[in-house]
């Protein structure tokens, strides 16, 4: 099982690699086409602004490489935070920008209808679909770390979990065939996050 973390000059790549390594899996941070093609699972990490993220993917031709691997060859991919948001058609973060367009949905600013602060930062409980392979191992450990000002607005059929911020529902994860994404940071969610990674990787092994 080879895991490649996509290096697109953004993202907390070290933290993601560190968590996967801790679980004992073979992982590499790379933007190299060959290595991406040889990997069994791709991870698109987060921590970045949408426009810069999509620009960087294009600059490194990663959008085309990923299109081929994920859409044509059906390789499994896990997007984290802005890495997940990139799967959307468009994003309203600092302007309006086109995403990879893999999942029908748009990224919009979080507008709470009370006095809650934006960005949505901290540990929040998710309500998840028990059948999703992302959550096969977490049990009742459903507290995850979020840090985002924008959220993935899409049809319910693509959502495998959500969390509540004030009285709005925020998409916490999306799924479509071989495409998986989480809004929170499993690599920074202590044992809950490590269990998520392990459950997911074991399920697709």
């Amino acid at each position, binding site marked *: 099982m080879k895991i490649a973390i996509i290096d697109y000059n953004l993202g907390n790549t070290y933290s993601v690699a560190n968590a996967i390594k801790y679980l004992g899996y073979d992982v590499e941070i790379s933007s190299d086409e060959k290595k991406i093609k040889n990997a069994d699972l791709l991870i698109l990490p987060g921590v970045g602004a949408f426009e810069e993220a999509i620009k960087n993917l294009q600059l490194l031709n990663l959008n085309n490489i990923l299109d081929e691997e994920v859409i044509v060859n059906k390789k499994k991919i896990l997007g984290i935070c802005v890495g997940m948001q990139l799967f959307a058609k468009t994003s309203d973060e600092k302007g309006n920008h086109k995403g990879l367009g893999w999942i029908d949905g748009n990224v919009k600013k979080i507008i709470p209808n009370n006095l809650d602060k*934006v960005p949505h930062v901290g540990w929040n*409980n998710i309500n998840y679909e028990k059948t999703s392979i992302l959550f096969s191992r977490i049990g009742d450990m459903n507290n995850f*770390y979020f840090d985002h000002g924008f959220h993935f607005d899409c049809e319910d059929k693509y959502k495998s979990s959500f969390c509540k911020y004030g009285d709005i529902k925020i998409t916490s994860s999306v799924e479509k065939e071989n495409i998986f994404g989480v809004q929170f940071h499993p690599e920074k969610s202590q044992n809950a996050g490590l269990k998520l990674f392990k459950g997911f990787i074991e399920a697709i092994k």
Partner: protein
Amino acid sequence: MLVLSFLKGLLRLLNDAIMLKKRIIATLIIREGVVVQSIGFNKYLPVGKPQIAVEFLNNWGIDEIVLLDISATKSNLRPDFDLVKKIAKKCFVPLAVGGGIKTVNDVRLLTQSGADKVVLNSVCIQNVSIINEIAASFGNQCIIASVDLKMDSNNIIGVYDYISKSIMELPPIEYMKLLEKNGVGEILLNFVDRDGQYNGFDIEAINSLKDCVSIPIIVQGGAKDYCSFVDLFKNTNIDAAAASNFYHFSEHSVIITKAQLKQLFDSIRVETFSTYIQNKLDTRSRLSKKMDFELENLLYIKVEKEII
């Protein structure tokens, strides 16, 4: 009465409230590669290696760690990327790193070395537009602005520039608004006069400042034990509280703090293997020894190791 409050506490633990949690944050002050206890921004006592402190705080269930290298900017050094890498190895909670950051590239290298967010302080005083530049690449949520607050000679609270050792003319509220406008995701308010004093959070000042921006605020300075946090969360609606010194000097300090808070507030994350929710504390908030019969009973309880 005692039994009732104990049961209530237990019930809270069992029924985790579905909501965003108040964050209990540890700030590690690093000076020349060593964690120090800071007193009033001018006296420093060595505590130990940062990677050990991070490993313990992580295991004790801290919600977030802020690493501040206070010697980098003063000595005109860049962030110590290798040290951050070493520290991040044992850190599975968010790690925010500050000290010596001057450019977008510093932020890039930090996120490639284990940082998940960055903390900016004096660079914002010198050049507030750097925030915009960093946010354009990494997003607003990646940036915490640290604001040091100090009383001036007329007992009015002002923004303290630790490099020039002077209080800025711009009042704190205006400065905080300026930071928000330029795109920071959070503000860390650090009360310098309370640094290392153990006299509790400055509730009055916090309440006078917290509503001027619509981004999350973290407060720091003065925490003595869990009672300081109780006082803060009872009297303000602040999102996150940080402490640095007191965590280092008592075993399992984070778990104890959270266990006590959980009995009063729903919005506390308690996920460590042992929670200490049933333990008694002594007057200095340290765990008391259990009664002999309780210890004897423990002999027959099998505790399985948590498997990831």
